[in-house]
């Protein structure tokens, strides 16, 4: 298997995530925390993020489905989601969460609905890209594999 090429693909995908604004410098902080003691730390944190964010988004979906909209509750859920996005550096998601909260403050339900649809799309895209990234890293293996001389 061409480990060098896999690593190159992973690096390219990672760079595109930053260049296209999906991730910000907070993701670097997570990468800096990964070491031999926690070799899969970033992937573990990202997995926890998507598990938690899916739950929050389900709560928001339910709250938006109700006839009487509770903007305070919607804002609380979105504040939690925004906090999680901020902590992993999910920049585009964080921006859209901010817009959603502004719509809550204005009690603009149409704005909330549109914004939430965008959040769901961004969430899905980020999930796919990060899953691809970590899959490439797993296939590429540790750096020693990439530099091991062929027999």
């Amino acid at each position, binding site marked *: 298997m061409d480990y060098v090429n896999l690593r190159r693909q992973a690096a390219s995908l990672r760079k595109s995530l930053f260049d296209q604004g999906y991730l910000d410098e907070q993701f670097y902080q997570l990468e800096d925390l990964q070491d031999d003691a926690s070799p899969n730390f970033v992937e573990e944190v990202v997995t926890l993020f998507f598990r938690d964010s899916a739950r929050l988004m389900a709560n928001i979906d339910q709250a938006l489905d109700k006839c009487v909209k509770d903007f305070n509750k919607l804002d609380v859920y979105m504040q939690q989601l925004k906090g999680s996005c*901020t902590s992993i550096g999910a920049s585009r998601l964080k921006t859209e969460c901010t817009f959603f909260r502004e719509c809550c403050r204005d009690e603009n339900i149409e704005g909330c609905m549109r914004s939430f649809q965008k959040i769901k799309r961004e969430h899905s895209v980020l999930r796919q890209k990060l899953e691809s990234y970590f899959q490439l890293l797993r296939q590429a293996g540790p750096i020693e594999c990439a530099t091991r001389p062929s027999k």
Partner: protein
Amino acid sequence: MASSQVVKALIVDDNAMIRRIHMTMLFRFGFEITEVEDGKKAIDQFLDGNEYDLVLMDKEMPNMDGVEATRTLRGMGISTKIVAITTDSNSMGAFLDAGADEFILKPLNFPALADILKGFNFLN
């Protein structure tokens, strides 16, 4: 300080991802970590006789929020350093009034945590 030589920290946050991140940061400094998911469980830790040198306290949590937990701990005579860590910038006054020693906005980064720990003389 807690009675053992190891510096002990209690992470209080209802978000498992945040607890994981903060735990990893504190491990880097050699802390022994306990994590709980709400303010009431944090109180219970102290009521059970556990001692901590540092508490990282979130604000919005089920059962008991961070401001109330901080106020309750101070009311119990707990003098452990409490650092409020939250996305809610408006809660700084409430946290400091409740007895928190420091207030910092999420996301917590490693250099900021190091500065706080140095300020508390946890790092030599």
